[in-house]
């Protein structure tokens, strides 16, 4: 009964989405107010029905209704309740339902928090969002229905959830990622509304900025969580693998970051108008592309068991029509856009333009690397895979200049800035970063390392310059007049610098070792002694296995005690290694159990990872910075007051 209600609710949501798309759009074109007024109620109604369907599926999971095929495939009675709930989005059908639920939530929020917008704008925005909803609802109902029943012979128990996904980090990672992905649809809808209406002034950028920021925060958090999960669960000690699925989330992030900065230029200076529109379309296109790549399974051949080609075909057609139509409208309107781009070579505009160019070039290289195997295969040139060496070689050098100018941007003047002022502002910071960059690696390791110097130097350069800028501002301006978005920027930029330092130091100074150890034996890594002290049997809610103890000592002083485990999940007949990690602000010790070699010795992988926490700490700071900016008062007031320029 409940699954059928969920299914029915989706059909109702689809009809509402059709109304939400057609009438407001036509109404806005022929100026019929009663039709435009339909946008809000239909959007809210759609939200109610989609959310209802979502909870119907969740109910089926929680009550172990294995007559529902999707539940039978992804849940099991002995799964802890928390994972029963999160198993909802662990496979295709539920992920798509999550996608549409997230979209309807964003639509709902736009419908509620847009009271101050002109009626025709909100009609167009909701109409565009409704159109995307239609596409996904039809997709779910025709190719990926999560409510299909297994009747009359349904299994007594389900197949359970992939053990790797039974982790709190991964449980909330997909929703965060989707909230971010889908959030770019709002910026997209505002851009399309502006293009459709032909009023291409800066107004749409002001309205869409908080939405874009919010989406960006979630995406940042989602990517950070994903990275943290792969570090602590996969047992390889890595935090980023340049895997197609990871790249699929990174592409919209890079574009979204470019969009945030370009929105600012358009809002404040009226420049880059058509570029910003294009970025808004691009960020959403990449979100759709990411969904397509992950969900159609065309890139991850080994994982793509039982992929239905009709799904990929549908999604590709949909992606094509949405982005194709929007780019056609863009091509039609772009000629009419007049930018008031009047700025000198040395100005904040130039710096932000450089930021955008670098971010988009970086995005293009990642996109190329991700799609390259597919391109070769499509041209019958063989099956290859593109791995970290390509991405590291191309991506890292591209980012260096970005980090350099990032420190200058916030303190540069709009339109024009004399060279002398630039030198005066930054010489001290530059020298300080340079000296510390050279000195710190030497002081702590006794040897010079160019990459460490560059990484630390750039990180400190950003931190010092950002703090200095903030300090200057505080001296010049009354505290009350400093906007929250300034603090948001400061925190986010420092966050990125911290991530940069973390990445640099953990990549350079991490050491690892594969050894064979039995209880009682020990081994040395760096200056630390890792002793395998104990082993015991382990019984969890849905697994059995072993828990071991490793003591890490330095000069006979205990540094950490680790408990790596080997878990065996009986339902899936799958064993996974749960690494033991000692978390530290400056260093992590990490031990992963491998195969059991003979009666009592094990293959053990040992890592020493300095500064690895900084990578995620920086990610969290970036997200916090974004959140602070979202709550800038300015976005809630109708008139734009220039508080800080």
């Amino acid at each position, binding site marked *: 009964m409940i699954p059928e209600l969920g299914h029915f609710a989706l059909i109702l949501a689809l009809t509402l989405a059709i109304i939400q798309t057609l009438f407001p759009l036509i109404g806005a074109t022929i100026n019929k107010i009663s039709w435009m007024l339909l946008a809000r109620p239909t959007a809210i109604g759609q939200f109610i029905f989609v959310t209802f369907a979502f909870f119907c599926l969740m109910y089926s999971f929680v009550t172990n209704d294995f007559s529902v095929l999707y539940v*039978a495939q992804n849940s099991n009675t002995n799964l802890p309740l928390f994972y029963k709930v999160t198993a909802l989005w662990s496979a295709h059908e539920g992920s798509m339902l999550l996608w549409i639920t997230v979209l309807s939530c964003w639509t709902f929020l736009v419908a509620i928090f847009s009271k101050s917008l002109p009626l025709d704008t909100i009609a167009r925005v909701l109409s565009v969002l409704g159109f995307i909803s239609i596409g996904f609802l039809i997709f779910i109902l025709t190719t990926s229905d999560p409510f299909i029943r297994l009747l009359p012979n349904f299994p007594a128990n389900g197949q359970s959830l992939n053990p790797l996904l039974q982790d709190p980090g991964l449980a909330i990672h997909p929703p965060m990622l989707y909230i971010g992905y889908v959030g770019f649809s709002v910026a997209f809808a505002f851009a399309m509304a502006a293009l459709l209406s032909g009023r291409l002034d800066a107004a749409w950028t002001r309205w869409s900025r908080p939405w874009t920021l919010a989406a960006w925060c979630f995406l940042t958090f989602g990517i950070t969580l994903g990275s943290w999960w792969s570090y602590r669960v996969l047992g390889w000690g890595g935090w980023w693998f340049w895997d197609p699925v990871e790249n699929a989330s990174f592409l919209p992030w890079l574009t979204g970051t470019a969009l945030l900065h370009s929105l600012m230029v358009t809002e404040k200076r009226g420049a880059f108008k058509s570029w910003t529109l294009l970025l808004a379309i691009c960020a959403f296109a990449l979100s759709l592309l990411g969904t397509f790549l992950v969900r159609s399974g*065309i890139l991850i051949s080994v994982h793509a068991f039982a992929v239905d080609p009709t799904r990929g*075909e549908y999604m*590709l057609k949909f992606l094509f029509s949405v982005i194709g139509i929007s*780019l056609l409208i863009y091509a039609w309107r*772009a000629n009419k856009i007049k930018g008031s781009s009047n700025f000198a070579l040395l100005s904040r505009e130039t710096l932000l333009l450089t930021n955008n160019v670098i971010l988009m070039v970086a995005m293009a290289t990642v996109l190329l690397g991700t799609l390259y195997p597919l*391109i070769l295969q499509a041209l019958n040139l063989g099956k290859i895979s593109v791995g970290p060496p390509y991405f590291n070689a191309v991506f890292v050098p591209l980012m260096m200049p970005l980090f350099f100018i990032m420190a200058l941007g916030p303190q540069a003047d709009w339109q024009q800035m004399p060279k002398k002022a630039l030198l005066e502002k930054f010489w001290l910071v530059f020298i300080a970063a340079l000296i510390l960059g050279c000195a710190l690696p030497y002081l702590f390791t006794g040897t010079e390392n160019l990459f460490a110097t560059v990484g630390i130097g750039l990180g400190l350069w950003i931190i010092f310059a950002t703090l200095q800028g903030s300090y200057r501002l505080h001296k010049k301006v009354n505290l009350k007049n400093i906007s929250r978005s300034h603090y948001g920027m400061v925190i986010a930029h420092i966050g990125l610098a911290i991530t940069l330092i973390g990445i640099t130091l953990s990549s350079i100074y991490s050491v690892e070792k594969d050894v064979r150890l039995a209880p009682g034996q020990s081994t040395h890594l760096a200056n630390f002694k890792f002793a395998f002290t104990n082993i015991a049997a382990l019984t969890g809610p849905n697994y059995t296995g072993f828990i071991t103890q490793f003591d890490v000592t330095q000069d006979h002083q205990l540094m950490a005690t680790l408990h790596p485990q080997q878990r065996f999940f009986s*339902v899936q007949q799958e064993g996974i290694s749960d690494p033991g990690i000692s978390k530290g602000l400056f260093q992590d010790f990490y031990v992963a159990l491998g195969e059991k070699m003979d009666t009592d010795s094990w293959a053990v992988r040992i890592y020493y990872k300095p500064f690895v926490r900084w990578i995620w700490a920086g990610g969290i700071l970036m997200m916090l910075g974004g959140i602070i900016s979202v709550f800038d008062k300015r976005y809630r007031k109708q008139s734009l007051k220039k508080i800080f320029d």
Partner: protein
Amino acid sequence: MIFIKLIKPIIPLLILISIGFFLWRGLAINPTLVPSALIDKQIPEFNLRNLISPQQTLSKQIFLGHVSLLNVWATWCTVCANEYPVLIDIKNTHLVTIYGLDYKDDRQTALRWIKKYGNPFAKIGFDPEGTTAINWGVYGTPETFVIDKKGIIRYKVIGEVSHRIWQRILLPLIEKLQREST
């Protein structure tokens, strides 16, 4: 200059079209077709006990002289359970012999399973340790191999064989192989 001015707004569209072309081509490539080193090779030697009558052993010889399918399955595999009725339908067409490889399974459970759901297989090799499956390059269950009269592996389906796959891929292939001489 006028040309550039005209072409500039449609550049993003052109990029989209070219990416779309490759994605479309990419979809046509079957992702489940993981290149297997064993395609177009002789089947590996093996020696397995017959699941139903364990005193009998099965070897490579059973594949020779006719076109056959080898389905790797297990009672603990839910996808195999979905696939099972399809296999029975295939058996009832009498067009091809299906052999089974019961992978990492418990014998009694498997026998109960066959009693309950029927037996689409002419013979079932019992591979409790999964060692034979390793030689066949099996990734997981279910997998289905198409073997020609000479005992050469010609095709492999990774994942569930659906009616659609049977109709569109396996049946035409089997009919073609059956026309080949021994």
